[in-house]
């Protein structure tokens, strides 16, 4: 055990409950001066709760906190700032509409700084310079990239004189290159004498950056180990509590012809910006197509457009030779396209949180029922089937979905979508916030679907997982296609470069444009005709809210697919 004076922070027997949930149980933790401590644990293990007690957002129910050997009470963020603790939260605490400088100055004590002068930008830039950052202090946060925002958060923490810096999942939103840069910054801060706690559940990062690793499991403190004396396998066991196989299966089956073909798709975002920009790609049966991109690159808009939930500005979505762009969601479902989208708050889309599992299952198919009354019996049987098949832990089928744990909620959503026996499954962030076991269960479900010949589109966050699970990865940057690459032919670094728009491989292969199938369901002329018409419609009816868009294009395509016998195979 290190000498007391060498400890920047010591936590003794910290407990914290929310209602009946014990988030932290008698946790002991030490942070040495000038070290990087990784705080490792699965989601829901209490990492963030523990750190929020250091940043003054929560106050512990019991236990004591020592800083530099002195016992302290942290009852507000103000106390925390004064004690030299700074935290970079996972969801940045920035005012989007303010400039970088103003975001930093929010907490400044007004000593002779009653008025906000024009020179404040220069002042902040000078301070940033001293810490080794280059920033544009007048830049508005809303216009910043994620990594810039993070830099600003770190600078903010340093500005208020933090000696201890806590970073909550800082790499979750960064590309490979940005992570490398961040780690360089952290190492530099460590050299300058700062003590750093980094919360994460990514083992490779723990191994790379930390000096020691403290592990939490289900709100309890497990152990602290020297990084140099451990390995990923041991850490996983500490984290999960038993041995686990970290390999993701990657079964292969013969791929079919393209099931879903998307050409030239443009979709507007909520703010009227172009969220998806002339995107072309296709999914074959029996393959998992990963969609990689920095958060907010148009993933959500793309999924919604395919499922018919968002108006399409331009382009075609061909399924079974028919253009389904602009059809209502119900019709698209009937085509056999199922979508499960897990938004950041997990419950926001797809499930009605207060309804039971049965009711949520019925939601998707009540129209098929006979008579005016809901057929709850069949619904219940189906709910039971899903529970059994996917190992959902629940006391009954009648419990409100929001009362289930995150993993089980996501299984219900995925299970319901699979139950409609789709031929195209679109799933976005299906393992968001899940622990390792549940994640692997979800990967298995996806693989099973793939083996059934379903075409799966997997919008993901974790590149390691996508590299292992997907057959191909499509990279988008600002809604634009950067390339579609086989996961066995590319490195994580290259994908990172594509995500930031530095590398574009759309035309890298001679005689083949990425995202355009050689054995397309339509001929080149049909595509051209359809797209031309869709574009005309889009131009003529810029603000037309009706779902009629591309109706003619659809008929054109349908006429071809049913009327004439199309050559099998290559058209272009």
């Amino acid at each position: 055990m290190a000498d007391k004076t060498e400890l920047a922070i010591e936590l003794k027997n910290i407990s914290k409950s929310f209602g009946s949930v014990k988030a932290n149980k008698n946790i002991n933790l030490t942070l040495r001066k000038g070290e990087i401590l990784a705080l490792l644990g699965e989601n829901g293990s209490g990492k963030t709760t523990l750190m929020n007690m250091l940043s003054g957002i929560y106050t512990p129910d019991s236990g004591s906190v020592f800083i530099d050997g002195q016992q302290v009470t942290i009852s507000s963020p103000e106390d925390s700032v004064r004690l030299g603790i700074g935290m970079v939260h996972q969801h940045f605490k920035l005012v989007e509409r303010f400039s970088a400088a103003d975001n930093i100055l929010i907490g400044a004590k007004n000593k002779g700084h009653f008025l906000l002068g024009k020179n404040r930008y220069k002042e902040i830039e000078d301070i940033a310079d001293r810490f080794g950052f280059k920033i544009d202090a007048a830049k508005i946060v809303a216009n910043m990239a994620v990594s810039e925002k993070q830099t600003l958060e770190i600078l903010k923490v340093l500005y208020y004189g933090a000696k201890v810096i806590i970073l909550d999942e800082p790499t979750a939103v960064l590309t490979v290159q940005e992570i490398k840069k961040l780690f360089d910054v952290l190492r530099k801060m460590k050299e300058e004498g700062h003590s750093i706690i980094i919360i994460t559940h990514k083992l490779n990062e723990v191994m790379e950056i930390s000096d020691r690793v403290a592990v939490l499991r289900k709100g309890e403190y497990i152990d602290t180990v020297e990084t140099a004396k451990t390995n990923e396998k041991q850490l996983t066991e500490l984290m999960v509590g038993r041995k686990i196989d970290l390999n993701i299966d990657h079964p292969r089956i013969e791929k079919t012809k393209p099931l879903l073909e998307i050409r030239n798709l443009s979709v507007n975002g909520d703010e009227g910006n172009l969220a998806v920009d002339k995107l072309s790609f296709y999914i074959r049966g029996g393959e998992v197509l990963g969609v990689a991109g920095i958060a907010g690159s148009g993933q959500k808009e793309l999924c919604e457009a395919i499922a018919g939930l968002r108006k399409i500005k331009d382009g075609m979505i061909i399924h079974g030779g028919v253009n389904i762009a602009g059809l209502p969601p119900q019709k698209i479902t009937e085509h056999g396209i199922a979508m499960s989208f897990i938004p950041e708050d997990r419950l926001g889309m797809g499930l009605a949180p207060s309804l039971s599992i049965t009711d949520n299952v019925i939601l998707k198919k009540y129209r098929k029922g006979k008579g005016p009354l809901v057929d709850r019996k069949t619904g219940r049987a189906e709910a039971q089937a899903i529970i059994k098949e996917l190992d959902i832990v629940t006391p009954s089928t009648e419990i409100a979905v929001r009362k289930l744990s995150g993993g089980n909620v996501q299984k219900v959503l995925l299970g319901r979508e699979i139950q409609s026996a789709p031929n195209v499954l679109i799933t976005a962030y299906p393992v968001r916030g899940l622990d390792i076991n549940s994640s692997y269960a979800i990967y298995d479900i996806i693989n099973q679907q793939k083996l059934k010949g379903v075409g799966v589109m997997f919008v993901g966050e974790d590149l390691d997982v996508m590299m292992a699970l997907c057959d191909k990865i499509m990279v988008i940057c600002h809604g634009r296609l950067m390339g579609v690459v086989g996961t066995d032919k590319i490195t994580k670094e290259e994908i990172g470069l594509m995500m930031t728009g530095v590398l574009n491989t759309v035309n890298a292969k001679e005689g083949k444009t990425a995202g355009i199938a050689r054995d397309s369901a339509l001929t080149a002329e049909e595509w051209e005709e359809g797209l031309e018409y869709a574009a005309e419609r889009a131009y003529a009816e810029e603000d037309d809210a009706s779902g009629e868009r591309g109706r003619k294009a659809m008929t054109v395509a349908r006429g071809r697919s049913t009327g004439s016998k199309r050559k099998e195979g290559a058209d272009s």
Partner: protein
Amino acid sequence: MSDLELITLFVFNIVVYSIPLLYGTCGEIITEKSGSLNLGVEGTMAVGAIIGYIAGCRSNSFLVAILVSFLAASLVGALFAFFTVTLQANQNVTGLTITTLGVALYFFIGKGLSGMGKWPVLSSSDKMVKGFKNIEIPGLSSIKFVGKAFFTHNILVYAGVVMAIVLWIYIEKTSMGLKLRAIGENPAAADSLGVNVNLYKYIHIMLGSGIMGIGGLYMGLNMSGSFEGSNCWINGYGWIAIALVIFANWSTLRAIGGTFVFGFFNTLIYYNGPLANQFPHALGWLTKIPSQFYSALPFIITLIVLILSSVRKNSSSGEPAAKGINYYREDR
């Protein structure tokens, strides 16, 4: 009356009718900048009006009237803050309750006093009358037309415009204003840097309500303090003020211009006849419109403004992002 005299009088009255709206709007802007949507403007103005008026008459002091109306209204604001900040109650419901409560208090006090024959008459408080009388600004008031229309007003008119400018500087240019705006945009961000969010909210909700109260007092004095059992002095101005906040894009400077637009339509209620008589060829059609339409006009315009500003979506909107959302630090 000559043409110019009538127009001067018309413009003069536009100013008279717009200033109480300016107080209400500025009060609501500073409240909303702290992230609180207080729909109780109407009630808050009513309380400030009647209590300030009675206190002023009783003490025969205009200054007391202003101070008491500010204090009474800010106490109503404190009630709103207690419910929404401390108890985390829904802001919309609380605001509506404040309106109901405030207007009810107004009638309760007013009817009670006039029923007992104790309603204070403005003319018997000579210092109140003197305090509210029009002041000619030396030099400026002698400018032709402009001087009569803009620079011979009562003290609250000048004070209102100065207040709007000072508030703008405070909100946009000072470090306290920066903290205030940060709370309205993202209270968690301000909190994490040690800003006392609840204190700021209390102070600015109370300050905003107090300012509304002075606007209410102005309206009462403008009606010469005569209490009728059927109509409240505020007469829906509080609601227009809330719409004006949106029209002014949360800027107290723009509120000055915005209130003039509404002042124009309010003045038209009384001046459509004279204007039509004076200019029978150009404006004769004004009298053909039923008077009820003129009374409804400010509210119709409010409706149109709200529709237009909801359609207009731009990033330069000054609307505080966290407006209407209660902040609780331990929220997960």
